[in-house]
Structures are given as C-alpha cells and as structure tokens.
C-alpha cells in the first residue's frame, strides 16, 4: 500500500513546484477576465486610476450595465450570435456525422485519400480562405445576410475528424446488428452512432459554439448591417461610437457576452472531458 502511494505521489518540493506552475498558468488565463469583470462595475474615474484595486470604491455596476444594454442593441447582437451559432452547429452536425460514419465504418475506394484531405482541411487556417469565400458569397448574392455568416462553416474538418475518431471506437458488430435489425445506413448514423457518440457531440458543440460566438474576423468581412452583427462585432462598433474611452460599459457588455459561454461550458463540462478523452486525443 505504502509502496503504491509513494510512487504515485510526488515528493513535497516537486508537488509545490507543480502546483505553482499550474496556479501561475491558471492565473495568467483568468486575470484578464477578472479584470474585465472588475472594470465593468467601476465608474470612469476609477478605471484610469494608477493604483489597482479589485473592488470599486464606488459601485457603478448598475449604470455601466444599463448603458451596455441600452446604448447599443446588445440583446440584438446576442440574439444574432445565438441564431448564427445554432444554425452553424446544426448544419455542421448534419454534415459531419454522415461523413464521419462513411470514413469510419464503410469501405470504399479512395476513403483514406478523402480522410487525408480532411486532415489537410484541418491544417488550413480559416483566414486563408476568406478572400475566395468573400467572392463566393458575393457571387451567390448572400453577403450581408445570416447565410453569409453561416455558409463558410457548414463543413467542419475538425468535426469530421473528431466524430470519425469516436465512431472508430464503436465496434463493427454494433453496425452489423443494426443492419440486421433493418436500419438503413442513414438511420444507423442518427439512431445508433450519434447517440453513442454523445460525449463527442457535446465536446464538438462547445468548440463550435465558442469559436463562432467569439468570431470577429469573418463577420467583419461578411456583414455591414448592424442588425446582423454577432456580439464581438457589435462590441467593436459600440467602442467606436463611444470614442473608445467609455470602458466601463464596454467591459460590462463584454462580460455579458462571455457569460452564456461560461454557463454552457460549466453545464457540459463532464461530457466535454469525456468526449475529448474518449475518442480523438487519447
């Protein structure tokens, strides 16, 4: 017993060092958020004060948050973000799951080559394609619409890759049993594979929603109409309007924008970890 604990536990100095490193990294990530939250409840005078304090001397949260909600159409931006994220996620799963099933479980000529192309797609940064996509959007006449915000993301190489890795771990016998039970290939995808790969679906959903909720680059190119802007773009417009110095409401708006993601992640944390460790990155 003591032998096993002594091998699995680190010696005190090593444990202290490890925790110090972890705490430092954690703080590095967390500090901007804490600062953001702190600034969002401070009056303008305190924000630019040389000394730093976490709690405001004068609580100014109500004013800042009211301004954030009323000065610019923040609810509208968040609504846009929700519509775009749900559309993107829905279409992505609709496309990725059958693709991943074909790559994981069906045998056909050129399968490995196709999977290689998916991996290449995974390597390409999205910004590289922005110009061709912009031209495509222009030719289709969908610029400055919701469709413009959605169409570049309908096929997600990452989604295909993640699902494929997860589907690979599902035994072939389950697919065989489903075929004998009378399920069509499409039914196998939706009734058997996707429910069995639920952790991967949740993990992918979080990745997808976070990255598209926070996306600034493509919306900046694709839409000009303020009523179509997703949250980050909206916040940017808001900052310009306010001549860039009204940081209190800006931070309040940012906090409000980040909040839904935080809640969603905390709610799905368990599946998220399972989804990533279960299939792809084992």
């Amino acid at each position: 017993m003591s032998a096993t604990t002594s091998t699995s536990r680190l010696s005190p100095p090593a444990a202290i060092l490890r925790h110090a490193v972890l705490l430092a990294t954690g703080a590095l990530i967390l500090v901007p958020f804490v600062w953001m939250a702190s600034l969002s409840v401070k009056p303008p005078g305190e924000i630019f004060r040389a000394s730093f304090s976490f709690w405001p001397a004068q609580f100014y949260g109500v004013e800042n948050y009211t301004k954030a909600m009323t000065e610019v159409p923040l609810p509208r931006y968040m609504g846009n973000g929700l519509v775009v994220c749900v559309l993107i996620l829905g279409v992505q799963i609709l496309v990725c799951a059958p693709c991943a099933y074909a790559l994981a479980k069906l045998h056909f000529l050129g399968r490995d080559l196709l999977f290689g192309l998916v991996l290449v797609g995974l390597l390409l940064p999205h910004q590289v394609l922005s110009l061709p996509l912009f031209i495509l959007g222009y030719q289709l006449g969908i610029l400055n619409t919701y469709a413009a915000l959605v169409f570049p993301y309908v096929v997600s190489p990452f989604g295909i890759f993640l699902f494929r890795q997860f589907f690979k771990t599902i035994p072939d016998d389950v697919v065989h049993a489903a075929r004998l039970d009378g399920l069509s290939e499409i039914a196998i995808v939706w009734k058997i594979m996707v429910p069995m790969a639920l952790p991967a679906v949740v993990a992918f959903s979080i990745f997808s929603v976070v990255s598209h909720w926070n996306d600034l680059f493509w919306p900046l190119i694709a839409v000009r109409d303020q009523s179509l802007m997703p949250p980050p773009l909206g916040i940017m417009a808001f900052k310009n309007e306010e001549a860039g110095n009204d940081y209190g409401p800006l931070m309040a708006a940012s906090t409000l924008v980040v909040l839904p993601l935080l809640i969603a992640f905390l709610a799905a944390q368990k599946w998220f970890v399972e989804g990533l460790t279960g299939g792809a990155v084992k």
Partner: protein
Amino acid sequence: MASVLIDSIRKNYGTASVLRGVSLSIADGEFLTLLGPSGCGKSTLLRILAGLEAQDAGSLSIGGRAVEGLRPKLRDVAMVFQSYALYPHMTVASNMALPLRMRRLSVFQRLPLLGHLLPATARIAAEIDVEVTRTAKSLGIGHLLARKPGQLSGGQRQRVAVGRAMVRHPAVFLMDEPLSNLDAKLRVQMRAEIKELHQRLGVTFLYVTHDQAEAMTLSDRVAVMLDGELLQVAPPQDIYADPDDRRVAEFIGSPKINMLEGVVRERGLIDVAGATITIEADAPAGAHLTLGIRPEAFHLADHGGQGVLTGSVRMIEHMGSDLFVHLDLAGIDQPLIARLLAERAPHIAPGQTLHVGVRPDRVLLFARDGRRLHRQAESGRASVTPIREGA
C-alpha cells in the same frame, strides 16, 4: 423456418484466401456448428450468409430463395454476436423492440413526435410491447426491460442479445461465438439454455465456435473448418470416433489424440514405437502410416507383447475417476498420453516402466497426406464421404 444452402463460397481479403470454396447444406430445423480455430474463416462465412459481407464467388440460398445481393434485413436471419452488440444508449425493451419497429412501422410512424399522431402507430407499438415483454419473460429477463445494457451482467446481456434475435421470429439463427465472453460456469448453463431454445423454437441454427465442447454438446452436426476449408461435416460422435482427416482427429478431443508413426511390416501387422500391432491396413508392406490413438483406447497391460507399448512414466494427472499418464516411448519426442481408470492403476509413479495395451479396433490410420485409411474390416463403412470442396 428454412433450410440453408451454401455453394462453393470463396472470399479473399487482398491476397489472403479466407474461404476456399465452402459448400454446406443445412436442413430445416437443424442445429449445425461451424467448429474451427480462430482465423479459419468461420465467422466470415457467417457474415456472408447474413449479408454483412459479400462473397467473391459462390451462391447462397435460404429457404429455397437465392439471397445474393439481398440486404441483411431481407434475408430473414438473426444474429447473436460475441460482443452481444447491444445498443448501449437504449433500454433493454428498446433494444429488443428495434427490429420489430423497423419492420412494422413505416418511416413516418417512426418519427419521434409526429409518428405518435398517425392512426395505427399506437396500436402497432402496443403489439410490439406485448411481444417484447412475452419474449423477455420466456428468457427470464422480464424484470430488466427498463434497464440499459451497461447495468446488466454478462449473462443477462447475452439473453437480451438472444431476445433481440428471437423477437422477430427469423427463419435462421446465426450465432457467432455467443458464449465466449462468459465465465466457465455460466457458459455451461447458457449452453443448455441455447440447446433448449433450439428445441423450443425448432428453427435452423448455425452456430460458430472454437470450443469443441460447445460443438459436441449442442449440435446435430458439426462442420470442422480449417484454413478456409470444410474438412468434415458429421454428427458429433462421428467427428470424434470416425474422423476423415488427420487434422480433424487432432483438433477434436482433449487431451489430444496420440499420433505415432508406424510402418507396415506385412499384411495385418504394423510396427510402431518398438511394438507390433495387429491391424488390417489397406496399405502395402513397407508403407509409412500414422496411427492415431485416443488416450482412452489404451488399457493397462501386465507385460510387453503384441499390441502393447512400453514406456517410462513422465507425469501423472489425476482427474478423479481417471488418470492421464504421460509416457515417454523410445525414439518418440512427444509423450504418449494414456487415460486409465484410477482404480485399475493404483500404484503408478513417475519414472516407472509401464506397459499399455492398444485395442486395434480403436486405432485410426492416416496416410502421409493426412487422409484417413480405413481398415479392411470396415471398408464397407468407408462410403461415409466427407463434403470437401476446392483446394
């Protein structure tokens, strides 16, 4: 219910030939076991029959109907997998109901919410429920219907898998090593239950296993398969006592059959391991033969002589009523294993010299190519021809 006809099935994976022209005919209601070591192609044959894989050549028919190119669903076969292949996200009831739902409900009736609004859905769903419950009760899993497979023991999962196969009354049951994931005790119990199930349902069973005990106890006939070929198809007792091929004799029986090299001295006499045995072999003088002698064909002898082998005891295994005595014979590498009655052989000790007599009528003769040579006396029985194809 249906007979199954498998005709000259071939299958290659790349350059590896997995099935080399397998032909087999299974009668309606028969329990036939495909027995062979792992990798001999028996599971592949089963999957081809189920329509899960396509053969490269050959034809199949089930119940007199050619099934080539037919989707698995339309072949009217059900399969029980080694891993059970239950759907982990569905309850036992849903697992068992799925094959019926896919067959009896239309696409629209199966829709999640809309389907319930369609006229006949509720009635059909209720019928399915009744059948699932009845089948589950007959298998003793009626109380588990609301559970998920993850909450069940191995034996219970196995029953659910059988139930899912049973519930739609298939013409042919295919079972791919269904017991090999169970512990030894449960395996014996489930073996009896499968036998009983076959007798109760009376449908055709095709059972794949590498376990000869399962094959021998369950089957009406056993088909021994090796390297993609069927070596012999016969009732269990014939497979054991009257093998057509040296490989069949060696595969069946535990402990393994003793194989001794012998030379025909003259008509009716064979020299083997320093002794001479009286056997009417269908071979000329000077011919080299292999004698296959089952451990229980030996008996204790008082002294050497014709038909008696002599060796020194290497090891003794006590099996209760029997003893397995390992004997080193002069000039033979492998020890000879003799099964002797414990009460008749009380004082055997390692190192001792022992004489064991051989009953000539229990000796199996094989030619050098592994083919069985029948003794003259039984040449009339040699018409038991094996089904052998290809190669």
